[in-house]
């Protein structure tokens, strides 16, 4: 490292951009699916979940990256897990204090961020071998890639399942119920989240042929 890289060099920006599309954690790497199914019934918990994952992943990436030369390889998984677990407990406590209703809706899923494969995956694959700033961007990028899918799925599930967007009764306001429309109860159930994610994957791969597996 002779020359200092600019903070937002093309290489660093790529770290932010790629997880949003070509290496999206959910649609391309198919990680973190279980929480994506569970919290996407409504928009609000999905957004809170996305922000929580972003906070945890970014900070965990930075912490592990700072420690990367001091972490003994033999216990690195435990160290990563401890960092993640501590951050998740912090997020959970903060939600309980400042967003009690949302934390009750998310209930067990905040705790389950610990087992979200995206986190361990990023720490192991990226933060252990890179400097803090790129690690931070990588964390933000991957969490955003995860979050954006969460929000897209939640938008459709809430709109079609309960006829609302962020709790605002859209369908009622435009009078859709008067012409015989009824909410689709299936959208509220987890299988529909999987199908929605499947549709997103389909759309993404038909637009970007490189992502299609050849075997």
């Amino acid at each position, binding site marked *: 490292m002779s020359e200092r890289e600019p903070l937002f060099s093309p290489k660093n920006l790529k770290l932010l951009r790629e997880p949003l599309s070509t290496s999206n954690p959910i649609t391309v790497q198919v990680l973190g699916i279980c929480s994506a199914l569970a919290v996407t019934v409504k928009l609000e918990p999905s957004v809170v979940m996305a922000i929580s994952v972003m906070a945890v992943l970014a900070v965990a990436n930075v912490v592990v990256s700072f420690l990367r*030369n001091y972490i003994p390889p033999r216990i690195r998984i435990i160290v990563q897990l401890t960092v993640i677990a*501590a951050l998740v407990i912090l997020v959970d406590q903060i939600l*309980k204090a400042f967003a009690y209703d949302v934390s009750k809706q998310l209930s067990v899923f905040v705790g389950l961020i610990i087992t979200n494969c995206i986190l361990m995956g990023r720490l192991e694959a990226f933060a252990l071998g890179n400097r803090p700033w790129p690690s931070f961007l990588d964390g933000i990028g991957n969490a955003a890639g995860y979050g954006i899918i969460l929000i897209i799925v939640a938008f459709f599930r809430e709109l079609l399942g309960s006829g609302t967007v962020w709790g605002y009764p859209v369908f009622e306001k435009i009078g859709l119920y008067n012409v015989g429309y009824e909410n689709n109860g299936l959208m509220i159930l987890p299988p529909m989240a999987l199908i929605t994610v499947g549709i997103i994957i389909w759309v993404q791969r038909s637009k970007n042929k490189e992502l299609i597996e050849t075997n």
Partner: protein
Amino acid sequence: MKNFSNTYIFVFSAVMVTIVAAVLSFASLKLKPIQDNNIRLEQMQNILASVNIESTSKDATEKFRKYIVESYVINSNAEPQQGVDAFSVDLKKEVSKIDEVKLLSDKLVEQKESPFKKFVSGFTKSKQTDKQKITNEIADINNSRKLPVYICNKDDSTYYVFPLRGKGLWGPIWGYISLKADMNTVYGAVFDHKTETPGLGAEIKETWFQKPFQGKKIFEDGRFTSIKVMKGGAPKGDMHAVDAISGGTITSRGVEYMIQDCLSSYLPFFEQQKK
């Protein structure tokens, strides 16, 4: 990759764990008052919901002050417990006392029936004192029970709200039940849970399950019947039963036992109020 000695690994983990522990305890200490306040607000909302008043976390305090005119704590003999705040009663501890009394009562019966014990106790100590001891113990527990009562005044009628707590399938369930001034008719009920199965046991916190409790009676001809939660549906017109949740048998049964156990502690209070 660098090689680290075992000593380094031990020191590293020890230091890291200590730092993490310190950070977490600090956060927990700092956030506890805000979290407790949230729980208190939720409690208020639940109490209000049991007398069919809707509230949000913002107006809960205000509405609680307006409608809940009095709250106090009594023991199992309906005598008031001085200086105890109804809100700060540890229901978990109180409900475990019900089991303690049950256990002791079983012992009392056992002692009457088992000839072997009779035989042995004839040698060791007199049966009478043993029985006396247990009876005293039960009385002691009953005297020290802390049973909160909330009195609500809404539209010129008085309602009595009683907290409930019991066991579901995976963890605790709790709720509030409100009675009309006749101490017989249920005015409303709310239930909540910690970890019941979503879609099955967790349905106890939905309105469709809670609504049928309204108007049910807990006494028949002066005898305490409580409210049954019936698998397969309550018979039409049954004043003492509601429908159970299909697939949520153990949680439904938990609700039934919870209502029976918790309300039976209030029986002397009901008698007193009826007079």
